[in-house]
């Protein structure tokens, strides 16, 4: 325990804050459903056919450096506990029903974030025989985050657009 406390103190001294300073709320176009969520949004992530690249940067966004949690965004383990969905990947034929059900299980207004170029338009997987289409073909999309994968800053900015903080 003492060693852990020493490590925590040493980290603070050596690098200052690990997380960057909080930034002003980006001037993103306010998505219609954001204000209803009251500044605290639980996100259910659904991998609808992603290559895992976006997941690396989602982990970065929720990690200690970008720390989107301080703006009111939290991961949820089930869409029944979630306010919003974050969907990655082109939607595969075999995930179409699962994605639709995950969406229906979330309480209204359940905004959907299509995260990454594949979620927005199938990316390099367009034309693949097992791909159904972009997320918007299966569930209504409220926010799009471009990138392959999007930078953690872009993910943080998009989620802040929904928390409004």
């Amino acid at each position, binding site marked *: 325990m003492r060693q852990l406390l020493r490590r925590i103190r040493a980290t603070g001294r050596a690098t200052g804050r690990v997380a960057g300073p909080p930034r002003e709320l980006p001037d993103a176009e306010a998505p219609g459903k954001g204000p209803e969520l009251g500044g605290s949004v639980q996100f259910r992530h659904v991998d609808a056919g*992603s290559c895992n690249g976006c997941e690396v940067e989602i982990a970065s966004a929720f990690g200690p450096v970008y720390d989107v949690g301080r703006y009111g965004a939290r991961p949820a383990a089930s869409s029944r506990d979630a306010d919003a969905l974050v969907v990655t990947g082109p939607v*595969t034929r075999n995930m179409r029903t699962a994605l639709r059900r995950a969406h229906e299980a979330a309480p209204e207004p359940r905004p959907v974030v299509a995260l990454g170029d594949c979620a927005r338009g199938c990316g390099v997987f367009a034309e693949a025989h*097992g791909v159904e289409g972009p997320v918007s073909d299966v569930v209504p999309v409220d926010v799009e985050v471009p990138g392959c994968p999007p930078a953690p800053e872009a993910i943080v900015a998009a989620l802040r657009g929904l928390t409004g903080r």
Partner: protein
Amino acid sequence: MRGSSAPLNVTVTEVSPARLPAHAAVLLDAGHRLALTAAHEDPDGSLRVVYLFTAAATGASPERRDELHVQLDPSDPVVPSLAQLTFPAGRFELEMRDLYGIVPADHPLPKPEARLRFLHKGLEKLFEGRLPVDALPLAERVSGDTAVGHALAFCLAVEDAAGVTVSPGAQRTRALLLELERLYNHVTDLGALCDDVGHSILNAHFGRVREQLLRLNAATTGHRLLRGGVVPGGALLLAVPDAAGLQALAADIAELVDLALGHTAVLDRFTGTAPLSLDAARDLGTLGYVARASGLDVDARRDHPITDLRPALTVATRSSGDVLARFQVRADEIAASIALVTDLAYGMSPGLTSYWPPLSTPGERTSGTGVVEGWRGTIVHRVELAAGGTLSRTKIVDPSFLNRPALPVALTGTTVPDVPLAGRSFHLSHAGADL
């Protein structure tokens, strides 16, 4: 001859379906493993199955790659199952049945249940008809966290097929990038394993180191996931990792590992959880840290080398096969990777080295294989190039495809709260397994 590695020793044997099991048994008895099985629908409508067997380099004898090619009757495509000889064959056979309609006769599952393949995109088909350079973005996205591993296996296979020799320096650059990929993924998962047992502070510390590694990736190749570093015929390096910075990271990570394993609650949750026995690990054909944590001494960096990594390369193994062993193997591999990067970076200079496109394109169909130790385990690609140099078939085997059946075996007797922990200790790529 490819780079500084030993010349590839590939033999191709055409066998009839009836003779296939006997030929396979001879190779398996000689210490080969079934690394890949690929069905092909040739332009004339005929069906052909290629079985690739590999054997490790030992002492003075180079690695071996032996292929059995079986021509099938398209009106009655039946091939004898090899699942009784080696478990992975059964997995490949189900895949061939689902995607090519080839029936495995006497498969141990008489009516094999529908496999769900939630994330099946049809990735291999997308490669077809493209030039290798145009297919590279697909190879980098087989599993996004394994951009280097899959791009390298793909490039090695393409170079093998095209008869291109890559310079020893470029092979060393590739080996370096492969270790950077191992580093950030191992660090991520050590943190996640701590998080799964409730030690979120340590996860935050591992996350802090992870971000430094992702930024190092961006400085080295221009991409946080190391895309663009491995190219057909060579490698691209924007900057060489700094040795002093790496040593500081090594010390930082070692301290975090000590903190984790010095914590009784963490140690208690890891110890004895989801054990995979050596026999099960061997029989199921597991690969990577899952295999090594159960005592299987397999590592393609040594067994199928693209460049000589001695003496910096050490292959870590454990014998208990539990979550603790998988944690420890990966902690040891972090230390080994940093030693390798330091060693490889010495005297390395940034820049692009590539011998592509080849001076002449083959006038007939050629094939090639690539074997790489990605961070999850051994990745195997096999490509066929049509006349003109476009890809006519790409077969990809991610280690998760072969490790996935071992997870339920390890989970036998595991309590429900430990299931996510056990799953994370395997960390399968479903994108890589479902393709």
